[in-house]
């Protein structure tokens, strides 16, 4: 713009414009993220029920209760398990997909958009669609052709439900991560690959020794994204399994697929706002620690050109 108009405006004059343009975003960010965040921290150490004005300070009582509540511990563990499964599934699948769509295969642009489309379907809708597929279509196929393992829905078995959710989430999310990988692959100079080819390295060697180290920064991003989204998974969890079926943990019946976010939601809707807030703080701290470790470990593995 500046070069085109030929005018030279000192930076100072622009700062007013900058402030005006930034103000709505900053203001909104403060109003809906920063202030509620500190309110949330405050409410987690009170007995607030969501309505009453007289809020009493109760210290760490809400947090202490969590350590002995089977449903919370179970939700915490199952969320970690779900996140690990997801990181592995999504990254492997999307890496393979990105190799496919950057190869010389015909109609690769069609595949690119095809793999990306599931990401555009909202998690709520997607959950209902897959619930129908898993509960009705697969079971119908199973009973019609007497295929034993399809006769009961994967969603009704406590041991398979987390895996099923991870598969559905991979189906949704792999296309998006694939795009990140594709961008990384395309930014690698083709001369590197060609040189290796001339030196006699086969396809696998080239992928493992050149491609993967060269795109390590893409892995940092994609693992971070899959980690945080899986940890915070809610919408698909709600519509696909609703937390069910029940299973036994620490000698108490708990909901087998109730991830942490949904556990918080169910606590809050039972009018236990302060307790739910304490759970949310635990989720935040856990997520913060895990993702900081992940990013710093991954960063060390990145290669500079």
């Amino acid at each position, binding site marked *: 713009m500046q070069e085109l108009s030929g005018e030279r405006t000192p930076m100072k004059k622009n700062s007013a*414009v900058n402030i005006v343009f930034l103000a709505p975003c900053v203001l909104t960010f403060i109003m809906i993220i920063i202030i509620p965040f500190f309110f949330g921290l405050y409410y987690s150490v009170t007995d607030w029920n969501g309505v*009453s004005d007289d809020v009493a300070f109760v210290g760490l009582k809400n947090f202490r209760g969590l350590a002995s509540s089977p449903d919370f511990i179970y939700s915490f563990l199952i969320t970690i398990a779900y996140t690990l499964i997801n990181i592995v599934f999504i990254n492997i699948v999307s890496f393979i997909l990105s190799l496919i769509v950057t190869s010389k295969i015909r109609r690769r642009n069609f595949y690119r958009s095809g793999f990306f489309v599931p990401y555009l379907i909202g998690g709520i809708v997607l959950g209902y669609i897959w619930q129908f597929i898993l509960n009705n279509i697969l079971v119908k196929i199973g009973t019609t052709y007497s295929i034993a393992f399809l006769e009961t829905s994967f*969603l009704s078995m406590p041991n398979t439900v987390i895996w099923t959710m991870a598969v559905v989430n991979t189906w949704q999310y792999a296309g998006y991560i694939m795009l990140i990988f594709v961008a990384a692959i395309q930014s690698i100079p083709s001369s590197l690959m060609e040189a290796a080819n001339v030196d006699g390295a086969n396809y696998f060697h080239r992928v493992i020794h050149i491609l993967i180290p060269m795109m390590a920064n893409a892995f940092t991003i994609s693992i971070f994204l899959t980690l945080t989204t899986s940890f915070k998974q809610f919408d698909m969890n709600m519509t696909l399994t609703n937390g069910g079926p029940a299973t036994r943990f620490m000698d108490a019946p708990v909901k087998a697929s109730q991830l942490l976010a949904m556990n918080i939601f169910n606590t809050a809707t*039972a*009018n236990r706002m302060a307790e739910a807030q304490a759970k949310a703080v635990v989720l935040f701290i856990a997520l913060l620690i895990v993702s900081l470790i992940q990013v710093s470990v991954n960063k060390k593995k990145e290669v500079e050109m």
Partner: protein
Amino acid sequence: MKKKLLNMVAISLMLVLAAGTVFGAGTKEAEKETTVNMFQLKVEIKDAIDEYAATYSAATPGVTVKVETLGGGADYGGALKAKAQAGQMPDIFVIEGRGGYDIWKDYIADLSDQSWVADTDLAFKVDGKVYGFPVAIEGYGLAYNADILAKAGIDPAKLTTRAAYEQAFKTLEAKKAELGIDAPVAMAASVAGGMWWVAAQHNLACYWGGGLDFNDTSIIDMALQGKLDDERFLQYAKYLQLLFKYADQKILLNGSYDDQVGAFAQGKTAFLHQGNWVDPNLKQLGVTFPIGYAPHAFLDTEQTGLYLFAPSWYCVNEKSPNAEAAKAFLTAMATTAEGHDYMVNKAGMIPAFKSVKLQPAGQLSQALMAANAKGGNYGVFFGMLPDGAGQNVFGPIFDLFAQNQNNLNQFIADMKKAVANLPNM
């Protein structure tokens, strides 16, 4: 110059936008007349209540009633909290039981002096004072398809003990192919299908109130102290086990509301564990066969009553300047011919007021109304439990029992433990 102009335009646009967001929320029109805001959660009566509110507003000078509806699985409680925080607490709102009362008691007006109080048994009361206007009577027993029972040679009038049910279920199970049914009962208990409330709320209510006087809360009072009546609970658990064993297993373990009601409507099951709220669904599904209600008879002794309750109550916001207008609106609903016409004919509900003489259209609603007139029914007290007890505590226990139906002792042990923890919730 052109660029400066553009800058000016951009800046002023941003300012306008920012000002709009900051001040837009605060503007209020000057109103001379009273506007009563109502916020309710029954989606199925939205059109009917909007129409009634409009009629009432037209007939009452100086008062306009505005109804906002949020429901159908949406988070009504959360939305109401947001309204309260925003200083937009409605004049009439809904509570669903003791849990809601405890949350909102600062706002709830005492309605004991209202004229409709003497006309109903189902007003929401705490310590003898009336705080809630009963929205409707809902109720349930075990709904049956009279054609299938007749074909199988079962007399529904004799289903008054657990032994009689066991016999009937066995007969139906043996004649499944002949009758063209998948299973005797359409019952749902799964957390996954969002159907925990059928088992862990409505069926469990048989234990809380079945076979007792309509207002006898002794069993649930005992539970709120942390104790189960072992002998009574054993009989109840055996009845539940019976229902589970003879239920369509796919619906039981994973089915949704539509699966459950659909199976019964298509004649694939002889019994349906649902209340009279399924009437509109059955009509939609084109059901023509005659339907009736048999009692949930879980005791060894005879039980003949159905379970009747008000699922929710309208409360008046005491802090609102429009409280009197809001009370007048509710009174008109309960006492005028237009109000009765709205409740029965337009909204298809069974009013909780004895002076209403109109008949609802649905078969199950008619059966309930007949039972209500006959008397000897049982109260439904799950609304007295702490919030979340049904969904987060009992729900998984019932789901697990549905998965392991032979493990009766484990179920009883789990329930004992859960009830022992109720006083701490």
